[in-house]
């Protein structure tokens, strides 16, 4: 039997209850103005959900990466306007792996694009400089957890946002994506550490792409749920539109895309987990992450447009909930590399290995 363990099922159940109780459309609409929901964040933090997969001794809630993925999928389903993935799977992971405690409060992470921050030692402190584009949730974060370059090694730095110049930016559904400028920011030694094992720019990008893939799988599930509910209730020509075979066929196709997205994203979390215990290689991680981001982005492309088609005009209004899911899908598919970028990387790797290795690569666990 291949079913999730009790603990994960309970985690998902309690996360679902929590989001059901605290996320509704009014709150999502309000979050568009503030860029996030402080109240929801507090509830999540009380329940320790942002810290799943971070070891308890470093301020985390314990659990596996797949546990964190399960929570993130639910958060994606509810369009939760909080930096859940950033705090745990990205910033929390960087800190914990580098032996730094994970502070409470929302965390932001960078760089998420190609920029490089520079770090230099000055006595007992660090000086950090650089400019980062579109950092998710920077202006809300308690700390910015940044990967900076010190000569030929990486440094993980936990920076107070007040020391940086932050210019607000936003994505399609008004989630914060801010510009962050660090001009010789001074950091006490205790707030920085050499990047721990496995903490690299590349791995940050892998985990970011995975996090977005998982959240997108959840957002797709919601878009499908809304579409099904609408098809069950909207009447035209004297019939529920779900009785029309044309609508049924589109919904069935949509369901396939959603199932593929969930399968690709959650399987990939499993591969990263096996990588952490030495059961999967570095390139396996790249192949799995590329697969997840490609497949989920394709599903987002197909799914979001089917959802809107099934809804007719009501779906494109700001008063109906669907746009919170679809705008996020269209925003997230570009973050940490879109499907074209990952497809090229994956194709390159497959070709470099050669045709004779393709099947062995696909069947490697």
């Amino acid at each position, binding site marked *: *039997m*291949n*079913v*999730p363990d009790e603990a994960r099922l309970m985690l998902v159940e309690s996360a679902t209850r929590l989001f059901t109780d605290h996320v509704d459309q009014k709150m999502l609409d309000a979050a568009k103005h503030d860029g996030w929901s402080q109240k929801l964040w507090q509830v999540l933090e009380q329940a320790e959900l942002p810290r799943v997969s971070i070891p308890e001794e470093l301020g985390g809630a314990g659990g*596996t990466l*797949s546990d964190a993925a399960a929570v993130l999928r639910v958060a994606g389903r509810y369009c939760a306007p909080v930096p859940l993935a950033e705090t745990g799977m990205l910033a929390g992971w960087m800190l914990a792996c580098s032996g730094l405690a994970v502070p409470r409060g929302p965390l932001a992470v960078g760089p998420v694009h190609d920029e490089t921050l520079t770090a230099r030692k000055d006595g007992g402190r660090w000086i950090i400089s650089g400019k980062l584009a579109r950092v998710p949730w920077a202006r809300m974060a308690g700390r910015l957890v940044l990967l900076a370059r010190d000569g030929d090694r990486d440094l993980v730095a936990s920076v107070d946002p007040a020391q940086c110049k932050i210019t607000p930016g936003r994505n399609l559904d008004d989630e914060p994506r801010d510009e962050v400028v660090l001009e010789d920011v001074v950091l006490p030694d205790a707030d920085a550490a050499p990047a721990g094992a496995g903490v690299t720019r590349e791995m940050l990008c892998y985990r970011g792409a995975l996090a977005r893939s998982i959240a997108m799988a959840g957002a797709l*599930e919601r878009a*499908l749920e809304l579409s*099904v509910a609408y*098809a*069950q209730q909207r009447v035209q020509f004297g019939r*529920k539109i*779900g*009785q029309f*075979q044309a609508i*049924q*066929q589109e*919904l*069935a*196709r949509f*369901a*396939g895309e*959603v*199932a*593929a997205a*969930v*399968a*690709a994203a*959650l*399987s990939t*979390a*499993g591969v990263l*987990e*096996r990588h952490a215990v030495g059961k999967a290689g570095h390139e396996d991680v790249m*192949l*799995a992450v*590329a*697969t997840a981001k*490609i*497949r989920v982005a*394709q599903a987002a492309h197909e799914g979001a447009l089917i959802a809107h088609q099934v809804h007719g005009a009501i779906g494109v209004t700001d008063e109906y909930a669907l746009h919170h899911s679809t705008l996020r899908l269209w925003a997230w598919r570009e973050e940490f590399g879109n499907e*074209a970028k*990952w*497809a*090229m*990387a*994956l*194709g*390159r790797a*497959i*070709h*470099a290995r*050669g*045709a*004779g290795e*393709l*099947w062995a690569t*696909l*069947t490697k*666990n």
Partner: protein
Amino acid sequence: MFFENVDFSGLELPPAALRLREEVRAFLKAEVAAGTFIPHLGHTEFDADFTRRVAERGWIGMTWPRAYGGQERSYLERFVVTEEMLAAAAPCAAHWFGDRQTGPSLLRYGSEHLKNKYLPVIARGECYFALGMSEPNSGSDLASVRTRAERVPGGWRVTGQKVWTSWAHKAHAFFVLCRTVPDIGKRHDGLSQLIVELDAPGVTVRPIRFMNGHHHFNEVFLDNVFIPDDMVVGEAGQGWKQITSELAFERSGPERYMTTFALLVELTRRLGQAPDERAQEMVGRLTARLWTLRRMSLAIALTLEPASADGGAIDLATEAALVKDMGTFYEREITDAARLLTVVEPTPDATDSFERYLAETIVFAPISTIRGGTTQVLRTLIARRLLGSLK
């Protein structure tokens, strides 16, 4: 919504399955090296000698009880054998139906007599089965079959016509879905499955040529064919339940997304180690889709695994339909990418594998979305599960 309570984070094959994979690869490598078969894509080829060599390894009916010639191995091991055969485009048609359909049906519903009579010979690769469901007026709407069996002392007299019967001209027997009780409104009642030996008096097999001239399927005429009582599978009148109960395994297997895989390998080879970005991107996309389909198929196999003995605790039939629907479309994407990334005019008798596969997959492109449940029928089924019954 779908795949509820299926865990995608594990999906690791047990060590026995991994060891078996190496054995199957070594076997196929030796077969290819010895040139025992020429790989073809489309419908898998019929090669009785190959089937016997596979049987010698114990890879036909491998999940069945030893008492009936099986090996009592897991469904996951069978999954591995199936995907390796497909990856090598090996000719498995002779044992295909017996292994996938006949065996499981007999184990589940067949009498002791039928199990003893057929399972060991199928497992030895000596007896081949075909499937007689479709009729000229009954395709997707299978419950409308008109072939009928009439009660006579000691058995039944069967009359009717079956079509599209794959490999009936080479098989020994076939399962026939027919009506044993007249249709009086409750159309799913009164259907039965019988085994008809193809050399029985009153059976006529005529070829129907595929568009490229291949003789793959047939029409089979049944004219008052006598079927003794002990050739009825399960209970007379329960045929519908029987044929619908095995769909989860049937529709979610690797054969639903891998029949053009060998073309992808040859395409990759032809493009070389450092192709242009367009080719990289296309191959990347195809790889991602295949990886995902395989994860879904594997998830179904792993989830059904221990339940398979007691009759399936989790119902994944709709998930299987999803895999089949997406898998069969995926197969065509490989064909299209191969066309668009190379300059080749498809030639059926090409000696180059890539060119031959390309020609074959173009010609056979329509079939996988038709057989085993058409796209439209599958999607209707999926939508019903999504929407419930709307009034």
